[in-house]
């Protein structure tokens, strides 16, 4: 055992001396490596597509892609137009003229393939044997009050329009633009969005007295990339500033602060550069890797620099103190880096590629930070002037730590019980946590997309659920049975509280049947034979203008149609219930051949938490065992390695419990918090245990004294490290992206819980274990707790 530690010590000290000897060479090597890897950063681009959140294997994504290939792509931009005075009608000459102009101009938005509004709605009516098909609103400026009123009545009576493009009161209206991107360049979405924004501005100035909100899938996609860039622009500088201030406060050394900044900057450059070489598309989530690397990379250097300062205060010359400081920290820094890397790599178990990217970028960054802390840092410290002032804080903190050690040793049984109760109480709350992944709410109110979408959601639904309903055979969609069933399904869907609008071709069929019988209202029903429906459809299709066809509703051989249920504000759990209810309804009421699977972006987000949690439980357990294995090898103790799983695993469970208690609702990033936190919180345990083992084996101290030694030597560093991590992740919580905020807050919680457990629970466990191991009476200190 001793020989093992000695060998590592000798190796690390020798290595550091060598590094200092060839410091210019090492410096050059580090710079070349950093900028070589950093060149990859030029390849980094922000993804502008929510689909990047889903892996290619995701079955919901596959089903949705299939639906879109059968009908039309579902990317859209929704313009919601409302009069400035709430309660005013949208059916005025001015507002309708704005809608008409917006509709005409929206065709010119890049990649637009379809535009729907009340103005270009293809209104059909019958005059004798003529079927008249025309835009519902033509020349809005010149409509008489009576004409305006009739347009309003037609709109709110039309099932395809009301609650979709016009509110039932006629107060608010919308223009929906469907886009199809060639998907050749990442600039396509921003291009379309910029055109839409410019159009909104133009219409708002030209037609006074109206407000336009912009939402839809394309706006969402664009916002993902905008928020990522925004985060990059604010979080990274803020993070550097925070680290600069903290490093200065802790080290009070110019050389130390500069060295740390260089180490973390280089580590981040390597991490992001490698990501660029691998063609990673950035998202707000993978972008948070920079903040995470900056935070975690600090730790290695801080530990070494604190040791260096201590050694120099003891009177060691700098040139000897540097190898010694590295020697003392080589093991823990290496182990913590490896465990952190393992934690982050386990993110690859996630179902969501941005989390793979976050995990892998961070793992590379941490690896680089480890390398740079052991090479660049000693070189820089040897080059830069280092002055050490005598300070008293060390003594103060040492006294504090010793007191804490004595308290824990004296009360370890009480602590064991007390902490266990607290932990169990938190864990008991875990089941009350609720998941919610509504993409609108991924962004906070600072983001325009969020406020605009909230405004739109007051009037319309934003969460479509699509059903591609098969008919019995080619052309079978015209069968009366099929259409009747479709109609019944539409009625069922409309009765659901979450549903605000239903689009089904059965409504078109009913209207055509009426038109074909001289607009006789009694024929507003499904035609009673297949040929009739098929021929109506043919007639209708012949009369539609470019872009307003039914190809997005009916497949090519007319053997399936698409029913869309638009959900209003529905949480993930409400959506799940809705999906289950509709499946059940179909199973009970429809023949076998009609059974359809609901699909859409909303469906994908609804199941993303389940998928991620399922995968991440496996990933986290794998990581916990891998880390325990690393600890067993590193500490050369099976018992300690296994024991480490307790203070490593419990903080995660406590965090989920505390979150359930304090917040209650969480998005799918929750699934990944465990992996991220795990790698970080393990560090405290590693530092504590490695010092404990060193004291126990190297110095031959008793368990109690080894605990005191560990507190004295690493207690303060753990506290400082925790503060750095908490502040670092606090920076992450200033992100506008909810998943990042949640991730940051939960990581902070778990880090604090880990500190608590490492200080109050781990020593108590060690004492219990030592007692079990050999129940040899050890002296006064051990009998004391029982008497207390």
């Amino acid at each position: 055992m001793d020989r093992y530690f000695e060998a590592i010590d000798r190796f690390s000290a020798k290595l550091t001396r060598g590094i200092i000897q060839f410091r210019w060479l090492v410096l050059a090597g580090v710079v070349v490596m950093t900028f070589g890897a950093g060149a990859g950063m030029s390849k980094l681009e922000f993804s502008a597509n929510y689909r990047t959140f889903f892996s290619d294997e995701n079955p919901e994504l596959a089903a949705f892609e299939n639906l879109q290939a059968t009908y039309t792509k579902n990317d859209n931009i929704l313009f919601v137009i409302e009069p400035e005075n709430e309660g005013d009608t949208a059916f005025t000459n001015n507002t309708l003229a704005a809608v008409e102009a917006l509709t005409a101009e929206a065709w010119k938005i890049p990649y637009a393939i379809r535009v729907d509004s009340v103005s270009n709605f293809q209104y059909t009516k019958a005059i004798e044997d003529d079927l008249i098909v025309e835009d519902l609103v033509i020349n809005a400026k010149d409509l008489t009050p009576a004409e305006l009123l009739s347009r309003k009545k037609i709109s709110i009576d039309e099932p395809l329009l009301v609650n979709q493009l016009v509110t039932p009161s006629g107060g608010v209206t919308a223009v929906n633009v469907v886009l199809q991107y060639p998907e050749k360049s990442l600039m396509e979405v921003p291009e379309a969005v910029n055109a839409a924004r410019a159009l909104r501005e133009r219409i708002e100035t030209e037609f006074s007295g109206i407000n336009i909100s912009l939402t839809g899938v394309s706006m969402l996609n664009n916002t993902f990339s905008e928020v990522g860039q925004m985060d990059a622009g604010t979080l990274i500088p803020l993070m550097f500033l925070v680290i600069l201030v903290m490093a200065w406060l802790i080290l009070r050394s110019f050389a130390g602060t500069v060295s740390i900044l260089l180490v973390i900057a280089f580590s981040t450059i390597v991490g992001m550069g490698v990501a660029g070489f691998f063609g990673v598309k950035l998202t707000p989530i993978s972008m948070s890797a920079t903040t995470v690397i900056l935070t975690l990379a600090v730790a290695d250097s801080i530990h070494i620099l604190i040791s260096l300062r201590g050694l120099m205060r003891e009177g060691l010359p700098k040139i000897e103190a540097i190898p010694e400081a590295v020697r003392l920290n080589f093991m823990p820094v290496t182990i913590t880096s490896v465990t952190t890397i393992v934690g982050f790599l386990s993110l690859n178990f996630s179902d969501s590629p941005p989390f793979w990217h976050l995990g892998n970028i961070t793992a590379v960054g941490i690896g680089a930070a480890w390398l740079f802390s052991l090479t660049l840092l000693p070189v820089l410290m040897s080059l830069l002037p280092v002055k050490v002032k005598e300070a008293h804080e060390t003594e103060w903190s040492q006294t504090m730590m010793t007191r804490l050690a004595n308290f824990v040793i004296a009360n370890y049984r009480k602590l064991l019980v007390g902490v266990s109760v607290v932990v169990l109480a938190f864990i008991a709350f875990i089941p009350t946590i609720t998941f919610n992944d509504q993409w609108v709410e991924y962004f906070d109110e600072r983001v325009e997309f969020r406020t605009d979408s909230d405004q739109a959601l007051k009037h319309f639904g934003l969460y479509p659920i699509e059903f591609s309903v098969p008919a019995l055979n080619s052309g079978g969609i015209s069968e009366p049975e099929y259409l009747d069933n479709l109609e019944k399904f539409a009625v069922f869907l409309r009765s659901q509280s979450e549903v605000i609008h239903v689009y089904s071709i059965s409504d078109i069929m009913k209207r055509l049947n009426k038109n074909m019988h001289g607009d006789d209202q009694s024929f507003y029903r499904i035609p009673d034979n297949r040929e009739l429906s098929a021929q109506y459809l043919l007639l209708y299709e012949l009369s539609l203008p470019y872009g307003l066809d039914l190809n997005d509703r009916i497949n090519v051989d007319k053997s399936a149609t698409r029913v869309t249920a638009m959900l209003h504000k529905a949480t993930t759990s409400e959506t799940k219930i809705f999906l289950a209810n509709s499946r059940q309804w179909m199973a009970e009421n429809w023949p076998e051949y009609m059974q359809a699977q609901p699909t859409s972006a909303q469906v994908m987000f609804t199941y993303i938490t389940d998928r991620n949690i399922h995968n991440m439980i496996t990933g986290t357990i794998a990581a916990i065992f891998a880390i325990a294995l690393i600890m067993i090898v590193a500490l050369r103790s099976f018992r300690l390695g296994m024991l480490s799983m307790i203070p490593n695993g419990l903080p995660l469970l406590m965090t989920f419990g505390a979150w359930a208690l304090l917040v209650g609702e969480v998005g799918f990033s929750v699934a990944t918090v465990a992996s991220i936190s795990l790698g970080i919180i393990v560090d405290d345990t590693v530092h504590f245990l490695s010092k404990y083992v060193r004291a126990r084996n190297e110095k031959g101290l008793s368990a109690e004294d080894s605990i005191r030694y560990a507190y004295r030597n690493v207690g303060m560093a753990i506290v400082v490290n925790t503060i750095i991590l908490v502040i670092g992740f606090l920076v992450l919580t200033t992100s506008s992206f909810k998943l990042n905020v949640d991730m940051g807050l939960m990581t902070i919680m778990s880090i604090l819980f880990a500190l608590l457990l490492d200080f109050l629970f781990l020593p108590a466990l060690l004492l219990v274990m030592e007692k079990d191991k050999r129940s040899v009476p050890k002296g006064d200190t051990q009998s004391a707790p029982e008497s207390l």
Partner: protein
Amino acid sequence: MKQRNIFSATLLFVASIASFSQLLISPALAATIEEKTPEEVKGFDIAARSDRSDRGFGDSEAEMTMVLRNAAGQEASRTMRFTTLEIPDESVGDKSLVLFSTPRDIEGTALLSHAKMLDPDDQWLYLPALKRVKRISSRNKSGPFVGSEFAFEDFTASELNKFTYKYLREEACGELQCDVVERFPRYENSGYTKQISWVDTTDYQIRKIAFYDRRDSLLKELKFEDYRQYADTYWRSHRLVMKNMQTNKSTDLVYGEYKFGVGLTDSDFVKGRLSRLR
């Protein structure tokens, strides 16, 4: 050469009269029409030569199969009989009749069209299930024809005076040389801002058309394949392949043998005849 210019000038005169009322209101427009650039004249000439290479066929009839394909690669087909009656007056469009035979649920449905140059075509549809003829009154029929990638206006695209023209260049097209001519719909409510056509310099037939949408970006490409000559005079493409470049959907039109001189007259192209077709 000289003769052709005189001829096209006459045609221009006819076209000008057709839009006489517009000319009165808009002198600027009159000026642009009168002062045709050499490219516009050459473009028109090429289109006219192509159109006229087909003049005098009288009437024709052919079976046609339409194969529709979506982005997922699923296919569906419809069959129909296409009958055309040539109207010698170039300022009036041809008359056509489409009789659907499959899918079975639209069998016997018949569409009669009287093409017009600048106004919406007159169209009537006979619905056998309803046993009635319905007139379709729609200003804008630029949508897909029976769910295909063809708009009805694409079928009548050979009407010379539906467009203004502009010659672009000459280039190779397959084994042939082609004149490339831009053409702009003169009628309202077209789905297109412009089309670019490739007309070969040997047989004067259209080999390809690129359609541009309202944004002026490429929407569809139509290729004319399998040209066969009838009576040593009339060329007919037997395979038209339309591909939507934005949605990746496509439609093929496959024609059977054309029959010419079937003996049809104006009285076969009236709405009263629709219910008696077979």
